[in-house]
């Protein structure tokens, strides 16, 4: 029974983890994109510079979301100590 509770806790943590990460990354990317598009609209000649700077920022933010996805999937499918904990809990 406790092993089942452990599994439920893992799945809940994975769900909340990816939800919070997606929320934060969505906000961050949206804000960056908004500022970049406004900048290009005001000064179209700056398009190249703004695009490159934004690209690096977006890649950085996106990788955070991918990290959260990986951690969530590890929690559900490949928890390193899952067998040991399940054995302890019975």
């Amino acid at each position, binding site marked *: 029974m406790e092993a089942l509770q452990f599994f439920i806790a893992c799945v809940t943590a994975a769900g909340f983890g990816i939800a919070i990460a997606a929320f934060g990354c969505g906000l961050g990317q949206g804000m960056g994109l908004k500022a970049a598009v406004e900048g290009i609209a005001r000064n*179209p000649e700056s398009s190249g*510079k703004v*695009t*490159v700077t934004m690209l690096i920022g977006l*890649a*950085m933010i996106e990788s955070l979301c*991918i990290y959260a996805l*990986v951690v969530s999937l590890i929690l559900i*499918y490949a928890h390193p100590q899952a067998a040991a904990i399940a054995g302890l809990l019975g």
Partner: protein
Amino acid sequence: MNIQQRLLTFVTRSNWVLLASVSLLGFVATSPSFARGLIFGGLIVTINFHLLARTLKNALRPSRLASPNVVLVKYYIRFIISGVIIFFLIRQQVVNPIGLFLGLSVVVVSITLATMVELKKLIFKEAV
């Protein structure tokens, strides 16, 4: 070459260099599963970065703006494909999760390196 262009060139090149060196190191010094994680993780983020660059360049060039819908669709397709690949890699236990995690850090490490190189240039320029 301005600082933005320099950063992008550095990151683009160092992504591949880091991926190659990390893969070699993985094969020499770690288990095959860990090395596979490093390679797959590195490939996923590096290809993602190149596709993101191409989409953004097409989308934000004032001379020929892409339709917002096309940009959105491309973005979601890329993200869903990455997610599905990562899901199968972890679900089927093809790779070591820690190796995959490290492999996925290739772009972040490249960007950090590029920033440090630019910072070093700036500090030395200030000192002179």
